[in-house]
């Protein structure tokens, strides 16, 4: 955040603050303070998005204490009046400080919610590997909300592309517990109802052993260790083969595993 931005924020804030103070109302939730609240909401949000901490944002307001107390000391005629004035100003600034912290928190929560939403969509891309063959590389935790998105996007793409084979690759799923297994089985069953066969690939040795101990029965599903194995199987089922041809300078390269399996 540049000095010019801070300067402009400070000007807007002090202008709004003057107007509010002149109203004589000392409740920051009152209508007279709506401009102040708006200015603070805007600047808390921009600071939160830029990664400032709540205390840094609150300091923007609380740093006014010192100059205000100085000014009050010069104006006050006696000690009692000074104490009263400082109490009023202090309460007011504390309220504003808390308000800023709350607004900051709200803005951060907004950022997090948006990121979660983005991640949910980003991490479930359905890829067409070949005509009639879809692949879905699943990465991260397969909790309920994610699984729903995964399932919907896969089923939709099966319809859109008329695919007959879908490969669910779980190389990027760190933990396969019974809930994840159940979600996978349900996705496979739903795809089957739509006329597509599913292959689950990316089953690492430690996951395989854990699934066996858990007692999850994946016998109804075709599984492969790697995506390349699954792709080779898919091509075989479609009656396609990858063959070796004399190398040409601009020829498209194919994966060795796919050509070996064909």
């Amino acid at each position, binding site marked *: 955040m540049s000095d010019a931005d801070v300067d402009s924020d400070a000007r807007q804030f002090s202008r709004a603050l003057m107007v509010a103070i002149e109203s004589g109302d000392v409740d920051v939730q009152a209508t007279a303070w709506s401009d102040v609240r708006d200015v603070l909401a805007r600047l808390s949000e921009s600071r939160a998005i830029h990664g400032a901490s709540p205390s840094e944002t609150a300091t923007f307001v609380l740093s006014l204490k010192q100059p205000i107390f100085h000014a009050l000391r010069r104006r006050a005629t006696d000690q009692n009046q000074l104490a009263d004035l400082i109490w009023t100003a202090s309460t007011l600034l504390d309220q504003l400080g808390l308000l800023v912290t709350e607004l900051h928190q709200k803005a951060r929560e907004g950022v997090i919610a948006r990121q979660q939403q983005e991640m949910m969509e980003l991490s479930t891309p359905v890829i067409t590997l070949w005509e009639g063959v879809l692949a879905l590389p699943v990465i991260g*935790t397969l*909790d*309920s909300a994610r699984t729903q998105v995964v399932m919907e996007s896969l089923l939709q793409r099966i319809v859109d592309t008329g695919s007959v084979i879908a490969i669910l690759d779980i190389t990027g799923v*760190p*933990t*396969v*517990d*019974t*809930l994840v*297994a*159940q979600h996978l089985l349900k996705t496979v069953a739903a795809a089957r109802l739509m006329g597509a066969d599913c292959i689950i690939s990316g089953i690492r*040795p*430690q*996951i395989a*052993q*854990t699934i066996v*101990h*858990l*007692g*999850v029965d994946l016998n109804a599903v075709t599984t492969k260790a790697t995506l390349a194995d699954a792709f080779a199987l898919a091509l075989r089922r479609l009656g396609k083969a990858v063959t070796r041809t004399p190398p040409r300078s601009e020829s498209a390269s194919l994966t060795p595993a796919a050509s070996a399996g064909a």
Partner: protein
Amino acid sequence: MTSLSAESLPVETSEHVVSVRQAVRRRAVELGFSLVDQTKIITAASELARNAIQHGGGGEVIIETIALQGRRGLRLAFADRGPGIADVARAMTDGYSTAGGLGLGLSGAKRLSHEFAIEAAPGTGTRVVIVRWK
């Protein structure tokens, strides 16, 4: 059995299942568990944490690094505030679920651990303790 270090984590929401898994993974790595052993204890923790939330209305887990006769291990104690389990033997049966799951969580967690203990008298909540040695 001596306790080397322990931490307590809340188990209230499905986000907590993720944080419990991560904490267990961190400790298993610290203890030098093999990848297979790590995956087993993490998966067992995931099952028990989800049970505590789904059936027990939430609770907490104490994750403890322990030592016994020169061996070191990881001990997880889940305690929830739920109604307990009326028929523990039945709940431990493969394929028995009251929540539409696969019914393998509790029995699977037992098979993934070296030691398994469950206290689930109706009305007192359920307490499940598992240990996996290195």
